[in-house]
């Protein structure tokens, strides 16, 4: 994985090979677990970074739930390599990994990602057909059982924000739900999207503040300050509903309501020149700066057990 080109977008098969290579190179730190299958029967692979112990407190990071947001899958690959490179040399990460596990799902919506590579670069949703409609797919960030069906998602299968027929109807979502529920010890959950440079916390389906809003807000501020320290990239932050718009059935509302206090969603670069077509030369800078924010969230989670 040293010779893997982190400054390029890669096909799904190359990402799968990268994951296997990383596991082979770091057998005492990295393993691959398969938490389910996508609609088109692709494995839903998660990299587990662990130094031992059973069912340690854990941090979850996922990238690529929206297929066309290529910068996120590419950043996820970079994070995976960064973790193995920094373990043992970066004291903060070493401390975290000596006590907690990190789970990283780099291609959360593999069917969609493959579809963006081969058929439609602008595809966002899953690839499951919708009975009675010619429109395919569900927005997997509206499919969670938290405010599901309330305003802030569409009931029309042709909409980009179609919520699906029922909560957790998408196998890509259900796999994470089952994993989180079974694990019982995930303490931070970060789901990564693009674009528009924001760091958001619950809630999206209601304007009621979460009971941890003050802490989530100040941690978000610290994270985006650290992020900006590298290249000066400016982020906004706040609750989903206050910062963007009402979004029901979204990932972090569900994780927060499951008791995962440090639940965040990122929107990575940019602010309006490239959108989903962020040039590949921006992959590494984006991942580098995002890593600083992730470290802020992970360190805070480690130092503030609950």
């Amino acid at each position, binding site marked *: 994985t040293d010779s893997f080109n982190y400054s*390029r977008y890669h*096909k799904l098969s190359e990402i799968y090979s990268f994951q296997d290579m990383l596991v082979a190179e770091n057998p005492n730190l990295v393993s691959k677990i398969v938490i389910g299958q996508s609609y088109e029967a692709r494995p839903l692979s998660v990299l587990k970074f662990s130094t031992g112990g059973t069912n340690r407190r854990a941090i979850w990071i996922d990238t690529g739930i929206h297929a066309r947001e290529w910068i996120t899958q590419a950043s996820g690959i970079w994070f995976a390599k960064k973790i193995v490179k920094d373990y043992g040399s970066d004291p903060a990460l070493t401390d975290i990994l000596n006590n907690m596990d990190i789970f990283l799902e780099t291609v959360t919506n593999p069917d969609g990602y493959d579809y963006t590579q081969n*058929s439609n*670069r602008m595809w966002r949703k899953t690839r499951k057909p919708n009975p009675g409609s010619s429109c395919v797919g569900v927005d997997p960030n509206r499919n969670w059982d938290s405010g599901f069906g309330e305003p802030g998602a569409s009931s029309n299968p*042709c909409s*980009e924000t179609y919520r699906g027929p029922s909560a957790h109807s998408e196998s890509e979502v259900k796999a994470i739900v089952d994993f989180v529920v079974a694990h019982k010890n995930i303490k931070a959950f970060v789901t990564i999207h693009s674009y528009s440079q924001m760091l958001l916390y619950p809630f999206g389906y209601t304007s009621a503040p979460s009971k941890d809003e003050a802490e989530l807000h100040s941690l978000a501020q610290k994270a985006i300050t650290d992020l900006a320290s590298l290249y000066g990239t400016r982020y906004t932050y706040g609750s989903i509903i206050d910062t963007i718009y009402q979004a029901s059935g979204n990932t972090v509302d569900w994780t927060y309501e499951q008791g995962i206090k440090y639940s965040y969603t990122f929107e990575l670069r940019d602010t*309006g020149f*490239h959108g989903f*077509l962020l040039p590949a030369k921006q992959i590494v800078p984006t991942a580098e700066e995002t890593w600083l924010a992730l470290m802020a969230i992970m360190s805070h989670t480690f130092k503030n057990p609950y």
Partner: protein
Amino acid sequence: KELFKGHQVLQIIPKNDAQLAFLKDLEDVLEFELDFWKGVTAVSCPVHVRAPFQFLQLLKRILKRKDISYVPMIDDLQAVLDEEQKEIELFARSLKPKN
């Protein structure tokens, strides 16, 4: 492979609540096949929308009639996609072992 020839991505900045409300309504009109890359949020916050070639002029006329200003963010989406694809293919070729 779906092509996006003639598609443009427009940046629209709503100036007031009326324009904001209009753009919010537009988000729900699926017939125009508009793809909101960045959704409608608040007055003065940019909205990014991909418009397919067949509805582009209509959208521009509607925006003009409503006095909503816009600028193209991406002039020709397919040209950018071609560039992206070329780069990926060049890289893939460079990985193949030489004789």
